[in-house]
């Protein structure tokens, strides 16, 4: 006895798309909207961000391997923006988009060189877990956009 319609998590006030979980086998749907975290520039926030990201990922029905990659991606984004940022809060937006996950993150910077050799290891890792990523400085803020594509 199984009724896939019951797997929706929509509540009384939300008329948005359903977020069926992995066990129900429903179609992969786009999530309810972006989630923003504004985090103090403290290395300990890395784990807080990973926890939030993995909650979102499991909601979106990502596989265990995909969740691991998303955790790596958000951690690298934070390494770049905390270790090379100006010590001000870091904004991280995670959104389920059609083909996967998009991470947009930024923080105020004093001096920031997107081609700094110290960023090479982070970029290599981001390149390994993301379909694409881009780091640039704009209006006194370093900004990173990383896109992860789901395998299903």
């Amino acid at each position, binding site marked *: *006895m*199984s*009724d896939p319609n*019951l*797997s*929706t*998590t*929509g*509540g009384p006030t939300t008329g948005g798309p359903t*977020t*069926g*979980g*992995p*066990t*129900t086998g429903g179609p992969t749907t786009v999530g309810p909207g972006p989630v923003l975290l504004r985090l103090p520039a403290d290395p300990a926030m890395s784990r807080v961000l990973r926890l939030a990201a993995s909650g979102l990922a*499991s*909601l979106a*029905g990502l596989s265990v391997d995909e969740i691991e990659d998303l955790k790596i991606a958000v951690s690298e984004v934070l390494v770049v923006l905390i270790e090379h940022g100006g010590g001000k809060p870091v904004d991280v937006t995670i959104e389920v988009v059609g083909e996967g996950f998009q991470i947009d993150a930024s923080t105020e910077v004093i001096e920031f060189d997107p081609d700094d050799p110290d960023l090479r290891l982070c970029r290599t890792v981001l390149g390994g877990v993301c379909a694409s990523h881009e780091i640039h400085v704009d209006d006194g803020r370093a900004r990173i956009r990383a896109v992860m594509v789901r395998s299903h």
Partner: protein
Amino acid sequence: MSEFASNDALSVQIGDDGSIVVAGEIDMAGGPVLDAAITPRENDQPLVIDLAQVSFIDSSGLRSLLEASRRAHTRGTVVQLRHIGPEVARLLEITGTTDQFEVTLR
């Protein structure tokens, strides 16, 4: 046991004895899933809900249980909460609603 409904944090199954077996977290997203499992099973017999595997419950989950209890009372029967753990016990205690149910501990 047959799978009834779930989301990524909650699963509801129907036990071979007709009990409703809940596992995971009963929150705002889980309350409606639980409601949907409870309603078609309401009759003049005690409604048995096994909560042994429930690791989190908030007022949304409790509300489902309380409403089931209220409906059960109007049918002259009760809701039995089986094998509740400390998380469920704490919420029943805080809200003073333990006596709305027949409760057995985990």
